[in-house]
Structure formats: C-alpha cells, structure tokens
C-alpha cells in the first residue's frame, strides 16, 4: 500500500515545482514591468492627511514622467527608511533628527521646503487654564501640575519629538509613566480623535487640526511660539553612504528621480501652490512656503 502513496508523492512534487515556477515567473514579471522610472517618497502622515501631496504629486509626475510611490509614516520611520536606502527621497519635519543624519553623511541635498506650526489644543473649558499661561513651557508645566489628561502620539513622529522637546524644556520628567499621560502610538488624526473623545490636551500640527476641526471637540489654546514651528525639509539618501552600509541597496536607489523631486519641491511655481493650499477649504493656507530661506529666520 505504501508504494501507492509514493506514487502520489511523485505527482505532488512536480505539481508543486510547477506552481512555484509559475509563481516565480509571475513575480519576475511584476518587477520587470517596474521601470526605473519610479521613486519611493517616505513622508509624514501630515502631508498626506492634509491633502497637499494629492495636489503636488500629479504635477510632478506630469512634469518629469516619474511615478511617485508615497509611503506615509511618522518622521522617525521615514528617516530610518532613508538611512537604510529603502526610500529614494524624504519629506519630513524632524529637524534635529535630520541634522544627525546630515552629520553622518547619510543624507544629502537637504532643503527647507515649508513650515506651519504646532498648536496646543484641548477642551473648550480648559480645566487647567493653560490659555492664560505665558508660553508653551508654562502651559505644559500647568498640565503636569494639575495632572490634566494629556494625549501623546508616542510614535516617534516629528510631532512626538517636538512634544518631548517641550517637556524637556519645561523641566518635566517621569511624565511618561504618569496616569494622566496617555500614549496612543498612532498617527495625528487618530490621536486627535482620542483626545477629543477623552477631553484631553494634545499637541498637534495645525494642518491636521484644521483638516479635522469640524469633527473635533477641541479648540486652540496655545500657539505662536517660535518653539512651535513645524519645519519641513526634503532630502535624499547619500548613495556613497548607502554603498558603505549595503552595496546591494545602493544600486536600487533612484538618485536622479530624487534630485528631480527635490528640485520640484523648491521650485518657485511649486512653492506658490504650497502657499495657496488650503485657503479655499479652511480660509487660511495650511503651510508657508520657505524655499531658499534660512531655518533661523523663520518666525
């Protein structure tokens, strides 16, 4: 009887081989069609959620013939993708982290693109009275003192990094273990929903807040501080650096496409579109175009 089973095996094995070969062919077919004419853009959720990229990317694709694959993640992950060479170009808002990569020569061609600002929002009643504080650091101190509920993204994004910077500046430590401090580990939009439902304070970028404002029970309580600037840069991984870390990846980088994208983002006509974006929907632009300016001159 057993030899009959072996006969079955004899059929399975060629069958499985055929399947695997077909799959392999299918898969190779897929990547051959992928021309070199595409770039992977790693960016933050804010640029996608605000709708800015929906407006800009088709223009870029039309102009250059490149196809852009937008991967919207937190700035932390986007920078990590750039450092590994898993993305061709980055559009992020975490200047301090970016500078570390510049120093390591992991990224090159870094340019200031635009800024908007971070704002502290919370429930209309403002139970801790942060409205009346002198600056953002005082506001954070008041929240900690009153043990008022505070929602954090906790996802290593640019916004999360900025929040940590402010806690540090306010001289508050050990907040991450406190019961009034809740970390969602999610993007800005989802975290705003959590804060709104829980009547908590939260630090957010203005663009995402405005885009979602109608659905939120949150009002702006603190804004306009220089500390609260939210600055976006474009940059690309350094092919030389990637070669050193992972030579196989360096060959896959689309250096030309990345250069074209960066040029596009700081081009005056693109900058004009950025400056107009959001006016029709929110009554005010969501971003201020900054190409060619110095980071320190922003206010």
């Amino acid at each position: 009887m057993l030899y009959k089973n072996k006969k079955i095996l004899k059929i399975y094995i060629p069958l499985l081989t055929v399947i695997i070969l077909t799959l392999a062919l299918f898969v190779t077919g897929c990547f051959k069609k992928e021309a070199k004419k595409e770039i992977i853009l790693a960016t933050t959720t804010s640029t996608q959620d605000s709708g800015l990229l929906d407006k800009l990317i088709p223009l870029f694709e039309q102009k250059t013939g490149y196809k852009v694959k937008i991967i919207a993640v937190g700035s932390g992950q986007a920078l990590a993708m750039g450092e590994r060479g898993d993305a061709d170009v980055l559009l992020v808002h975490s200047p301090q982290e970016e500078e570390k990569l510049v120093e390591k020569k992991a990224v090159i061609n870094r340019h200031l693109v635009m800024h908007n600002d971070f704002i502290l929002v919370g429930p209309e009643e403002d139970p801790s009275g942060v409205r009346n504080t002198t600056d953002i650091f005082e506001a954070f101190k008041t929240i900690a003192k009153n043990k008022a509920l505070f929602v954090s993204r906790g996802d290593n994004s640019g916004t999360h990094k900025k929040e940590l910077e402010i806690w540090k500046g306010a001289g508050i430590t050990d907040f991450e273990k406190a019961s009034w401090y809740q970390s969602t580990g999610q993007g800005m939009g989802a975290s705003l929903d959590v804060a709104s439902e829980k009547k908590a304070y939260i630090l957010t970028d203005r663009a995402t807040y405005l885009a979602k404002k109608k659905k939120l029970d949150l009002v702006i309580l603190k804004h306009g501080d220089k500390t609260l600037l939210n600055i976006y840069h474009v940059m690309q991984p350094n092919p030389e650096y990637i070669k050193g870390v992972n030579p196989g990846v360096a060959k896959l980088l689309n250096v030309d496409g990345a250069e074209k994208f960066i040029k596009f983002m700081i081009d005056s006509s693109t900058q004009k579109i950025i400056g107009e974006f959001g006016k029709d929907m929110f009554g005010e632009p969501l971003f201020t175009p900054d190409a060619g300016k110095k980071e320190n001159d922003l206010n």
Partner: protein
Amino acid sequence: MNTILEGIKKGLMMLFSFNKEVYGIAFFSLKVSLTATLISVIVAFPIAMFLALKDFPGKKAVISFVNLGMSLPPTVVGLWVSLILWRSGPLGIFRLIYTPAALIIAQTVISTPIVLSLATAAFQQLDHKLKWQIMSLGATPLQLMYLMAKEARYSLMAAIIAGFGGAISEVGASMMVGGNIEGYTRVLTTAIVMETSKGNFETALALSIILMTLSYLATFWLTFIQQRRS
C-alpha cells in the same frame, strides 16, 4: 449617530453611482485577495491531502504545527514580509515592496495556513476505508485525489471561504507591504484606515459597506458552489 446615517447614505450612493475610484479600489481588493486565495488553495490542498492520508512519524506534531499557523497574526506576517522585501532585505533586488505582488505574497502567507489547516481536517474526516475502496477499483493517484476532494468538497469550500475571508479583511500587513499607494496598492481596508485617520468617517463608512458587500457576495458565490448538487 448622524455620522453613521450620513455614512450609510453616502456608501449606498457611492455603490450605486458607480464611483470610478471606489470601484477601482474594490475591484483591486477582490483581485488581490482572490489571487492570494487561489495560490493558497493550489499550495495547501495537495499538502493537506498528503498530511491527512499518509502516516509518517511525527505526523501529529506536524499537524499541530499547521493548526498553529491559523493563528498567525497578520501584522507579524506584514512585518516579516516587509523586512524581507525591503530594498535592504534579502529579496530587495526584486523591487517587490510596495507593489501589488507584495500584497499578494503577504495575503497568501496569511491565508495558506488557514486553508491548509481546515483542508487537512476536511480530508481527515473522510472515512479511511474510502481510500482503499477507490484504489481497489483501479484509480490512478490523480483520480484518487480528485475523488477524495470531491467527497470532502463541503469542508474544502469552507476552507476556501475562510482563507478568502482572512485575506480580504486583512489590513496591518497590507499597509506595511503595500504602502497604501493611490491607484496602485490601495485596497479597501487600507483606504478605510486612511480615511478614518483623515477624519472622513463618511467615506470610511461607505468603503466599509462596500467591503462587507463584496465579502458577502464572494462568500455567497462560494457557498452557492459548495451547496450545488454534483
């Protein structure tokens, strides 16, 4: 409450106005998940039959391992598949990350253990004597496979339905390996997550209605085949 009503209204409108973008995403979701299910079935059925009908040492251990695969968390699959497919990963040179192929791979990895486990159980339920009976009538191994599969068709269909359900409803892995790229790798589940995070609850709800309708129709169709008298 208002959001829910608005969403349902908008969803129905989107369904019946044949919104091109929405149907594009829906059709693409269906294509990816059906392909993944088909591959799972092709891979899993022969193995399941082998596991169920052949005795070998350590068989119980192998089957318990297969069953364990059913509870493989999709997010874990997403993480591993993306680590492998990233440019910096071992299969990076194939440029598969953020392509429809990556979606199919991830969904196949998720649905194969489900199909395999349920199909193994289906074949094991068959009367063992049936095998000898078919073989004694002089059936070739291929005929044996066909007849056994036919005999177990109800349970096998259930396995396919479960595999398809696992694939189309999956979001974590699809987000990680596909990247939710508009017009390219955006599927219903990742679109729902994105619209939710944008605060467009109506659109998200509308897409969810379409997703449920689709999975229901697909399941209905598979059930129809399952219940058909042969």
